[in-house]
């Protein structure tokens, strides 16, 4: 499943990122934001006007990206516990809902 298909407020783990689909500077910036395999990510808000931007929580940051970036990020739902993040506790998910 791609990140842009993930419903809002659904926490998922990043499975794989198609880095080659992104430009070098986009790849660098996403990695600097902490986008990496094994990290948890949660879509928070969608922008306006059609395929608007997507705001996601990754780690303790909220980042905004476009459809093309979200399309390059593969995620899986269901085993967020297996992620290496420490702030992915059940109560956290409750707070986010």
């Amino acid at each position, binding site marked *: 499943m791609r990140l842009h298909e993930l419903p809002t407020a659904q926490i998922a783990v990043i499975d794989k990122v198609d880095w080659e689909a992104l430009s070098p500077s986009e790849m660098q910036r996403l990695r600097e934001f902490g986008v990496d395999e094994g990290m948890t990510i949660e879509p*928070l*808000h969608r*922008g306006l006007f059609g395929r608007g*931007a997507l*705001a996601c929580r990754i780690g303790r*940051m*909220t980042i905004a*990206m*476009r459809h093309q970036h979200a399309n390059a990020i593969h995620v899986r739902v269901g085993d967020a516990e297996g992620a290496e993040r420490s702030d992915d506790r059940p109560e956290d998910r409750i707070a986010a809902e």
Partner: protein
Amino acid sequence: MNASPLVALVGNPNAGKSALFNALTGARQKLGNYPGVTVERKSGRASLTDGRPIELVDLPGTYSLTPTSPDEQVTRDVVMGTQAGERLPDALIIVLDAANLENHLRFALEVLDLGLPSVIALNMVDLAARDGLELDPDALARQLGVPVVPTVAVRKRGLDRLLGELTPVIGDGAAALRPHGSATDFAGRQAQARAFARAAIVSETPSRRLTQAVDRFALHPVTGPLLLLGLLFLMFQGVYAWSAAPMAWIEDGAAALGDAATAATQPGYLRSFLVDGVINGVGSVIVFLPQILVLFFFILMLEATGYMTRAAFLMDGLMAKVGLSGRAFIPLLSSFACAVPGIMATRSISDPKDRLTTILIAPMMTCSARLPVYAVIIGAFIPARTVGLGIGLQGLVLFALYLGGIVGAMAAAMLLRRTVTKGRSSGFLMEMPKYQWPRWQDVVLGLWQRAVIFLKRAGTIIFVSTILLWALLSFPKPPEGSNISPVDYSAAGRIAAGINVVMEPIGFNRDISLALVPAMAAREVAVSALATTYSIDAGDDDEARLERSLGDRLKGKWSLPTALAFLAWFVFAPQCISTIAVTKRETNGWKWPAFMVGYLFAAAYIAAGVTYWTAVALGL
């Protein structure tokens, strides 16, 4: 002992670096530029605990030492000692956001690898606590091998300890870079940063996350755009409502000064120069200082609270449709204050074509220098009544003018992206910082810096062009007993008569043509130019001339269609030397500024013409 030690503040964007810089230096700041690049150099002075003075420099925020924009390049070059015009810092203060530790630690590790003496400011610990995060700074210090001081820059907490830790670190100021640096790569540092962060976190309890709660409203598909529109509308109404009283004081002050100068001088050139030229001309521009400060207040608040990036997020979809990114929204919104910092802010856009398009349309955003022009014309021609719901008609017209600029800019962007700046649309990747209530001192300091810049302009560009215009308007004098108006007979009147041949079809009169020439220096000069022209035209004997405002004089001389055409002209006209100069600097040549001036003048001419002809046809 030569210059005082240089200490650079480095850190990720949104780490609270600038707030820390302001808290450490207070008002002792100097704004400048790095030679050869247009990145602003912000420096200030502070004292170490042993009394030694240090020079602090606030470097642009960056996520790593691999730059993706000119701003980030400067940060890299300064800490590597390769930036022209800057020595290698004697020490660094690395600023980390306590609530975003693992991400910011990765950059800190990269910087620490350079081997420069460093102290870490673990900033915004109060906000981290608000989010239920408790940290152990000492554990972090042990792992990193450098002092770690918890700070709350906006409350001035931890500053003394920070300076205290900095004192021994600077030592005798013999800093040098580590020859090889470490071999750790991005992924290695990332892993290390995560491990360090985990070890430093004492406890973490879920608590109300203020930012997420606010975002649920501010980024909501329905309430979000309403809030944005409401804020912008409030901003433009506030520009009128909040500044009325101080503007009246300045007007009264200028009138009193004019009276005093009239009383103290004999009728003649000196009186005309002082009263018509200096006091009337410069005074008619300074009167807008309150409005400009209200506008800057809103812009500074939107930036400092973190809302500006939300506005960019909301606008990205729309910006994408015209081939821009949401990132362009921030420079464009800044351009409402002034296109010069707006154009400079485009440096954060990494895509060159995206950036060029943003630069080319930035002058269409209604800058504060247009406010004096709009305010005079609206004040004179638009009745001060409400259209219901407490909405003022004058504010509504002003809002429409701003909207006109925005729509024009979007149309221009769409056109440019399909022609001269054609290319693949770039992405939009941006961090959205936590909401924060800004320190009022920082806002006051920002407003003060803007006021000084405006008054300097009033004292230099506007003063000089006003005097030049006064001289051109005052000489030659019509012969004794002739009934030609002094302005028609003057050198300036003859120049204007020439220009007027081109401008007459779009409803402009000679006085407007006259005002447009000096207004090339700066838009607001149009107002002082009109004030000077009508002041001289009124003649020396007109006792009541100081009693009559410029607006009253305009009402007697201009038709409504002419006034509306004049407003439409200023929505587009590129009348500002500083904007043209900064465009030249940012695009490295004359090609793009020349293109910009050309297409904007054409747009202004067409807009003014269409407005005039429509108004005449409607019988206004």
